[in-house]
């Protein structure tokens, strides 16, 4: 099970920790009243505070603090009742104040953990080192003008949560599972929309390698800009192999920041001639420490939704689902909610099966999320009822389901309109069976030697009825007639 990379000198292990920047879901920015919505005209969501104008002062947004604490609670983490905003000083044209307000020595959230669902139903715990609040920077566009860059400060000052994991991740796949799980938790909590395309969730990976059996950690590199699930795995794998190759050639890994180039699928050094950063952190004298009361924290805790791990366990315990199915269903809160709505009116295992396989398959093919499903949970439950009471055969049910997906109609309507009810009235089927036996004496003989041939007769009856006959009922009539023939 353990992921290793085979090198010339032996087996190597990957050691990885992730730093995720998650945009806090809020109306306004962390320290100003400008809007956070994505995609506005350049510099249209900027207050003088975000533009670093003289004399402008920050005042912290209550909701951003609450969201960070909610996230901390969702990560089963320690909440620090006193946290301090500090200034991280560096010059960059998209950083208007000349410093980023961040938390350094005293983050709002301390140690926590995330449980990964591995294949085969196992789980693995990855430690969370800390979560802190900070401001996002603006956006630079480098190639729009000759010798110049263009700056848009709409993102400047938007609240981010930096979520740092322990170096507990041991494979590219685990890194992806971690990102997926973190995204799931954030989306459940409603504290970050998890949209990687819009940059709401960004990831840097700290990667090092060591030989299997080796203790301690070797030098790590920080890989920046791994901003899709796909790239997370590729960047880590590439970087691990690069480091192994270096070691095996007698070289050494230098601690540095590297950039993942998604076009080439490789990492490259970001080292410039500029000397090492010296951020000169110090507590921001414009802001007082953030102080949380027990009442506040407990209030936020009480308001938390059921989280994916708890929901998964409940699905297993209450609905008798397997760990895998339960895991798939809880990955998105909307899917879990959909399933529960179906399971409230139908047999849960069948509901899970249909949600995952049939509905999941059609949605996937249509490129839609569960929120856009043309089939409402009640409609799926109604279909499952028709299946259960024998009105529809399994095959017919799937056909009806496809039609429901296409039209959005209720299953009852589709069945009625197209006269698709399963034929249970044997009086209309008996003549067909009699005729069949009469027309196929050879097959009847074969049946006498091999009773399995009853299946062929059943198939013929089904064909003749356009699939509307109930196969079990057909066989009940068919068998005595064949035996008597």
């Amino acid at each position, binding site marked *: 099970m353990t992921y290793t990379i085979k090198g010339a000198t032996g087996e190597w292990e990957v050691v990885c920790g992730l730093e995720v920047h998650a945009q806090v879901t809020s109306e306004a920015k962390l320290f100003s009243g400008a809007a956070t919505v994505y995609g506005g005209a350049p510099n249209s969501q900027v207050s003088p505070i975000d533009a670093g104008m003289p004399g402008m002062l920050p005042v912290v947004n209550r909701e951003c603090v609450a969201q960070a604490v909610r996230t901390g609670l969702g990560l089963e983490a320690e909440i620090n009742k006193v946290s301090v905003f500090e200034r991280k000083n560096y010059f960059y044209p998209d950083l208007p104040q000349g410093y980023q307000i961040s938390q350094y020595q005293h983050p709002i959230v301390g140690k926590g953990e995330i449980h990964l669902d591995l294949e085969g139903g196992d789980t693995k715990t990855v430690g969370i080192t800390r979560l802190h609040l900070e401001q996002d920077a603006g956006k630079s566009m480098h190639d729009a003008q000759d010798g110049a860059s263009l700056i848009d400060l709409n993102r400047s000052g938007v609240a981010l949560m930096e979520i740092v994991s322990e170096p507990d991740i041991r494979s590219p796949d685990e890194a992806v599972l971690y990102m997926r799980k973190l995204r799931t938790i954030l989306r459940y909590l409603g504290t970050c929309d998890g949209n990687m395309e819009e940059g709401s969730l960004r990831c840097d990976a700290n990667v090092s390698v060591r030989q299997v059996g080796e203790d301690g950690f070797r030098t790590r590199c920080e890989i920046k800009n791994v901003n899709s699930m796909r790239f997370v795995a590729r960047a880590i794998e590439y970087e691990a192999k690069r480091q192994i190759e270096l070691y095996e050639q007698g070289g050494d890994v230098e601690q540095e920041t590297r950039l993942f180039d998604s076009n080439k699928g490789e990492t490259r050094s970001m080292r410039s001639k500029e000397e090492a950063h010296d951020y000169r952190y110090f507590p921001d004298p414009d*802001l007082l420490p953030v102080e949380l009361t027990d009442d506040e924290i407990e209030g936020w805790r009480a308001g938390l939704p059921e989280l994916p791990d708890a929901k998964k366990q409940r699905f297993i315990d209450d609905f008798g689902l397997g760990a895998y199915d339960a895991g798939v269903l809880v990955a998105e809160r909307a899917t879990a909610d959909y399933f529960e709505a179906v399971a409230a009116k139908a047999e849960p295992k069948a509901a899970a099966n249909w949600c995952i396989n049939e509905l999941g398959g059609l949605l996937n093919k249509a490129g839609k999320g569960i929120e856009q499903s043309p089939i409402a949970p009640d409609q799926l439950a109604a279909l499952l009822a028709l299946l259960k009471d024998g009105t529809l055969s399994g095959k017919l049910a799937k056909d009806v389901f496809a039609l429901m997906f296409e039209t959005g109609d209720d299953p009852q309507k589709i069945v009625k309109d197209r006269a698709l009810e399963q034929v249970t009235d044997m009086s209309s089927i008996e003549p067909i069976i009699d005729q069949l036996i009469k027309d196929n004496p050879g097959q009847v003989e074969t049946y006498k030697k091999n009773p399995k041939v009853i299946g062929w007769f059943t198939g013929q009856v089904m064909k003749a009825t356009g699939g509307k006959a109930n196969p079990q009922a057909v066989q009940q009539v068919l068998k005595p007639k064949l035996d008597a023939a």
Partner: protein
Amino acid sequence: MSLDEATVARIARLARIEVEDDRLPELARELSNILGWVEQLGEVDTNAVEPLRAVMPIPSRRRADVVTDGDRQADVLANAPASHDGYYVVPRVVE
């Protein structure tokens, strides 16, 4: 603490202040002088002292999550040395 010219040059680069080489000796002398003077704080025993974090102990406040500003691109860019199409124009940022 005596600052040498190389240190002053490094600090100046960190502060993004261009300092002509011929000013370095004088600056090194002045800054060393100031630092030498402030170092008398070393005499004070502060082992059991918490650093001052808020000048006046007032309760910390948080504002409501409401959009109250924005939609003033012209204001934002009015003082810009250069702007284009709603953007600030700055010297090319070398990656």
